[in-house]
């Protein structure tokens, strides 16, 4: 009897469990909301959402929801659209400079109801260039040729120089962790440098205040914001940057009142299409569409969750979630290991961006002080093989250093193409004996070289491919050396690498953003290439007023790069995202620019 009761109890227990687990469904909680939110997974939690000081791509993505710059851009054509400015006009002044006058729309409002004025832009830009702010894009005005920026940043250079020294010392401090005496000495040096920087900032403050008044931006009245740049070439660059988040306006009373806490949800005042409702760190930013935004009628998405802090595996689970209330609609990136699995699905969106992965040659040291050697190694690289079999990310192989631009804005040249025979001939001309013995290329007299890169599986794969190509095509011995990003960039900046990897993503869609790197005065010129003729060409290109002339000059400059080969471009960078098919309005473009207010959500199929 007892046994029978036990069996009955067991059967009842198991049956209850089975019935409960098959009928109980937490999904009954879902779908209670009025609209399905748009969920966008960002890479990481931002350090700050203050768009004036931000330097992270995550922070900038968030900024485009909360602030509105002078202009937006059409995703397809990338031409400027009205933003905070309802219109603008460009005029060439008699002194050769160009003035662009923006009229701020009368119906543009902050989230607290105050009107957006030209003075808000003036305050934001002043705060941007102020060394006390420490904005990453502090030097942006110099980049787009703002009048007065050269003098301002020349005066500010001692502060900037001390700041660079502090950063370098901090890098070295991290590397010196095993040596207590060295650490103590270097810590003291950093402290001394910091003190010098503070003193220098105090000393230069009156001069910088005077010079900032001479910078070429001005609020002529409440609704007119004028910007003066050096030439029409720079005017084009400025219009590429006018829609960049660090140039968004700021509501001065909010910042003065709340100081560092002005970006808290209860304090933040923005002029963008969305309002920040809630922020959970390592969770999400919850945004709601502003009904009082001037263009609210064209905003299809009411609620946005910008989800932060999840590792890729969690993001992928969320993306594959079937519950429409919880599923992600878009991701900012895709882990490279997963690209293959998503390759044939419409969700995977691979789009080139304006940036190049390249090889840098140290032009001041043997054997790469000979341009024939540099050309030889460049011509021995099979770019197609690299993108097809090594990186496998649908990148576009590129031999030019300045990629082409849409709408005929810039046509790229053809640089040094893969040609092993010509490569070997270049080495012979450089004085090396290159023979083919038993189907193997043997080069005599060529020193063993080291290719450096920062530790990363992707870079390692490319490095190994290059090593093999140079061995196979040129018969030269190449060692590989990897180190951490900090150590690698340090070595590269000190000129300690013979040949190493490089990569640059342009800050704006204009060849200047790439050309700038190889100027003699550029801090990014890791190849130490000195070519006065090249610098002259770039200078002329920026002064030219005719767009055809500008293109021609940049093409000549790029041809010079190909001829002297201080760098060897490999491929153009891509962005890779997952985007659900029911996300409307998403258009691939070179800027990877997809403001949420331009997107929509249709019902999933």
């Amino acid at each position: 009897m007892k046994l029978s009761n036990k069996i009955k109890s067991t059967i009842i227990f198991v049956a209850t469990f089975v019935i409960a687990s098959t009928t109980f469904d937490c999904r009954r909680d879902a779908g209670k909301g009025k609209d399905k939110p748009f969920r966008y997974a960002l890479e990481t939690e931002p350090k700050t959402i203050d768009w004036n000081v931000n330097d992270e791509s995550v922070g900038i993505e968030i900024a485009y929801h909360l602030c509105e710059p002078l202009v937006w851009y059409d995703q397809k054509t990338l031409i400027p659209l009205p933003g905070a400015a309802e219109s603008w006009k460009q005029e060439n002044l008699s002194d050769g400079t160009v003035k662009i006058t923006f009229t701020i729309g009368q119906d543009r409002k902050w989230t607290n109801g105050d009107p957006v004025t030209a003075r808000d832009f003036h305050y934001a830009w002043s705060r941007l260039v102020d060394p006390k702010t420490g904005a990453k894009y502090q030097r942006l005005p110099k980049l787009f040729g703002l009048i007065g920026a050269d003098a301002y940043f020349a005066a500010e250079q001692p502060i900037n120089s001390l700041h660079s020294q502090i950063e370098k010392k901090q890098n070295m401090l991290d590397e010196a962790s095993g040596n207590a005496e060295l650490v103590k000495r270097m810590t003291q040096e950093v402290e001394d440098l910091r003190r010098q920087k503070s003193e220098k900032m105090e000393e230069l403050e009156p001069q910088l205040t005077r010079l900032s008044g001479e910078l070429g931006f001005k609020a002529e009245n409440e609704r007119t914001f004028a910007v003066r740049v050096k030439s029409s070439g720079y005017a084009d660059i400025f219009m590429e940057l006018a829609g960049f988040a660090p140039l968004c306006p700021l509501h001065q009373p909010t910042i003065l009142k709340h100081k560092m806490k002005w970006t808290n949800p209860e304090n933040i005042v923005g002029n963008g299409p969305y309002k920040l409702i809630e922020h959970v760190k390592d969770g999400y930013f919850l945004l709601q569409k502003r009904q009082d935004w001037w263009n609210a009628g064209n905003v299809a998405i009411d609620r946005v969750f910008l989800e932060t802090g999840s590792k890729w595996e969690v993001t992928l689970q969320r993306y594959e979630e079937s519950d429409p209330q919880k599923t992600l609609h878009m991701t900012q990136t895709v882990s490279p290991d997963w690209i293959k699995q998503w390759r044939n699905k419409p969700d995977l969106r691979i789009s080139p961006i304006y940036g190049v992965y390249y090889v840098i040659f140290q032009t001041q040291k043997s054997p790469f002080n000979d341009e024939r050697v540099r050309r030889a190694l460049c011509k021995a690289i099979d770019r197609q093989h690299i993108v097809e079999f090594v990186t496998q990310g649908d990148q576009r192989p590129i031999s030019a250093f300045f990629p082409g631009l849409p709408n005929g804005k810039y046509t790229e040249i053809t640089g040094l193409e893969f040609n092993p025979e010509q490569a070997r001939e270049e080495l012979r001309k450089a004085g090396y004996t290159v023979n083919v013995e038993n189907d193997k290329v043997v080069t005599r007299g060529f020193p063993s070289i080291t290719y450096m890169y920062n530790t990363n599986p992707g870079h390692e794969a490319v490095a190994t491919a290059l090593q093999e190509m140079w061995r196979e095509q040129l018969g030269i011995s190449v060692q590989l050396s990897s180190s951490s990003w900090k150590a690698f960039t340090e070595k590269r900046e000190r000129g300690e690498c013979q040949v190493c990897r490089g990569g640059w993503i342009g800050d704006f869609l204009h060849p200047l953003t790439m050309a700038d790197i190889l100027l003699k005065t550029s801090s990014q010129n890791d190849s130490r290439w000195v070519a006065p003729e090249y610098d002259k060409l770039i200078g002329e290109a920026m002064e030219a007023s005719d767009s055809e002339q500008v293109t021609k000059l940049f093409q000549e400059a790029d041809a010079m790069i190909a001829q002297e080969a201080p760098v060897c471009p490999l491929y153009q960078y891509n962005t890779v995202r997952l985007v659900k098919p029911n996300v409307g309005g998403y258009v691939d473009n070179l800027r990877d620019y997809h403001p949420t207010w331009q997107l929509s959500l249709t019902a999933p199929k």
Partner: protein
Amino acid sequence: MKKIFYFVAVRLSIFTVLLLCVTIITFLLLRASPGNPYSSSDRKLSALQEAPMREKLCLDKPLHAQYYCYLKGIITGDMPSMKFENKTSFELLFPGKGISEGLPASAILGFVALILASIFGSAAGVIAAKRKNTAVDYLVMAIIMIGITIPTFVIGPLLQILLAGPTGLPKNGWCPGLEARKFTGESCWQYFVLPTITLAIAYAAYFARFARTGMLEVINEDYVRTARAKGLPGWLITLRHEMRLGLVKNVTFLGPAASGIVVGSLVVERIFAVPGIGKLLVESSLDKDFTTLMTMVVVLFTLLFFANLCVDISYYFIDPRIRKNKEV
């Protein structure tokens, strides 16, 4: 009761001394670690942060003054975070969003897991002891072994696959904030299920094991035999006489279990994307956010100290021998 007040007073005074020692040791260790608070270039302190930071942390003053500033910052709660410009380290731990974020999220996760582990684990151990050397006992022991040997980072994903799909429970994520819940209409409890079960399983196994051992020790005691002889029903004997002393080991284990759950929650928070202090702890270490690390050490030490104090106080009520001051 006078005894208990005296006991608590003594422990609180020890706590003050220990807390000071913990802060001094942590402070010295952090300051002795390579570099200074600004040394990692991965964490660029903005100029806006730098000057007020130096002032708040008294970085231009001698070491003992810096320690005093740290202590003052912890007590007043306004020690700035070295990573997030607009937050103090206290605000990172206690963001004021209920259980959606920070320490309250980790605490509720740990607390519920501990309750589940202790209740179910103890129950399983009691049943196993009462059914010693039967199929039930062997089954419980087998489950204990599995719970102890399989790591949390295996159990978590297994539960995600086995349970989340069929039942519609969320695979990951945590209870959203109030505004988000108002909009989506979802409730918090569904986010608790998988993380708390994952965290509870290993500790339930330990509780079961201790319960079984403890119960086996008291089952054959004279007073239990007497109760049986008196004709008391079996369930009353178990509840009133056997469990009282049989589960003392489980009460003792509550203290270390609380510590273990705090550590274990780091892995679970990672698996289920819970925005608790687990990630904050790791990131603060990597980013050398000294101020947040110091605050976390102090807060966690305080929590665990008081958890163990509660355990010690509970002995007074559980074990009559302690109340009557007899030899145990």
